């Protein structure tokens, strides 16, 4: 091992040097603390032996300085203070300065060998500890990278789950689906008023993109049928001034105003049709739930509404989508009802 020794007494320095050399160590000798520091600066030593009482810089000061110098060194420096008995009371001071061990003068060869051996063992522990720490650091980095990757994957999965596992897409089981390319007029009897909605839900829970046009409050509809990704258009007078912002910028309230003309009727029905058309043409096999046919009849007259429905039929065919219209018996006049049943796929309630 390379050992730096510092002693101002030539005799003692020389003896220590010889004894250490006899033990097989490579020794560099300095005549005082200052010289020892300079030697250490040139090249650090794993072990330094410092005489306590030296001119210029004594052992304690040199020890403190060495600790400062070695603070950033990867390898630990083991410092042994060489003392005479009278200095025993100052051991604490030396320990605080950073000394690891003490050896008394006159130096006994066996004692010296034992101290050096103990020092070597501690240096070896330190070395192994440093290596383990390095390994740990590498592992930690690896873990960090893994965590970052995992977080990314989790986030991707979360997004996917939000899309895939939303209530609308939760079912993968086979079901009886009404055909695409058609408008289905679904009878909703008193005892099963939500029949059309249920059929619509059957589709959207099987991953069919859906759009709801309804007279009911969209928030309530979403809550009731647990819709997350499905858009809901509100057929309401207050539509454009909705607090959460309009669901669809549908200027439907003009028809409610006095003196609204037939052109206004057609314009507003055209807006509804446009919404449906736009939705269905996004992709094949989409489904629209239209709830509020009786409202349309009342607001825009059966004739105008029927004209719009004919146009809708074409849109549905072209876009390969489908529309469910909730039909509540006794809300539509008989003649109109029979025309509707003929023009659309009539889905009567099961008896």
């Amino acid at each position: 091992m390379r050992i730096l020794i510092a002693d101002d007494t030539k005799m003692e320095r020389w003896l220590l040097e010889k004894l250490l050399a006899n033990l097989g160590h490579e020794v560099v000798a300095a005549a005082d603390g200052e010289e020892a520091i300079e030697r250490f600066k040139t090249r650090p030593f794993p072990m330094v032996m410092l005489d306590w009482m030296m001119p210029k810089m004594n052992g304690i000061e040199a020890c403190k300085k060495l600790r400062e110098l070695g603070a950033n060194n990867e390898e630990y420096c083991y410092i042994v203070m060489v003392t005479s008995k009278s200095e025993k009371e100052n051991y604490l001071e030396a320990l605080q300065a950073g000394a690891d061990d003490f050896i008394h003068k006159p130096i006994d060869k066996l004692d010296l060998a034992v101290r050096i051996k103990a020092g070597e063992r501690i240096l070896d522990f330190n070395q192994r500890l440093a290596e383990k720490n390095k390994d740990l650091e590498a592992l930690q980095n690896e873990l960090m990278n893994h965590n970052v990757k995992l977080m990314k994957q989790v986030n991707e999965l979360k997004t996917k789950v939000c899309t895939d596992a939303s209530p609308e897409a939760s079912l993968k089981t086979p079901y009886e689906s009404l055909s695409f390319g058609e408008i289905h007029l679904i009878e909703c009897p008193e005892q099963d008023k939500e029949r059309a909605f249920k059929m619509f839900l059957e589709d959207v829970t099987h991953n069919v993109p859906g759009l709801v046009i309804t007279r009911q409050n969209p928030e309530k509809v979403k809550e009731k049928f647990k819709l997350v990704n499905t858009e809901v258009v509100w057929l309401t007078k207050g539509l454009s001034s909705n607090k959460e912002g309009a669901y669809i910028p549908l200027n439907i309230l003009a028809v409610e105003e006095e003196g609204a003309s037939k052109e206004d009727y057609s314009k507003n029905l055209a807006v509804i049709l446009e919404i449906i058309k736009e939705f269905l043409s996004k992709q094949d096999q989409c489904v629209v739930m239209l709830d509020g046919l009786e409202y349309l009849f009342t607001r825009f007259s059966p004739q105008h509404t029927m004209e719009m429905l004919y146009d809708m039929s074409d849109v549905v065919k072209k876009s390969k989508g489908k529309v469910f219209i909730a039909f509540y018996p006794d809300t539509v006049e008989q003649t109109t009802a029979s025309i509707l049943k003929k023009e659309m796929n009539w889905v009567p309630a099961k008896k």
Partner: protein
Amino acid sequence: MSDGDARIFDSNEALSRADGDRELLSELMEMYLVQSKEDIGEIEAAIARKDAKRLEFVAHSLKGASATIAAEQVREQAYRMEKIGASGNLAEAPALLRQLKESINITNELVSKAIAKFRSGTEGRP
């Protein structure tokens, strides 16, 4: 070497401290002859200057050197001188200096003899 001499300078103890190496011990003893003379000169000067700190330091050094070659009498007196220096009160220093000078003279005579014996190979050989 008589028992009385061994209390002044114990060459056997010195040899064991030098790792049983006669050549090494001989060199150490030669160094001691030089250093002890230098040190006692410095001690005398420090006392004359009333430089207690320097006195403490040089006496400490002489104590260490003496301990190294087992020169017990000088070691003990040098230690007392060191303490005088540390106390700052040099009143007893001149008296002790006289003793110390005498001890060094006796010790160095014994040391010189020992060197001659070690070098001629007549001492300590099995």
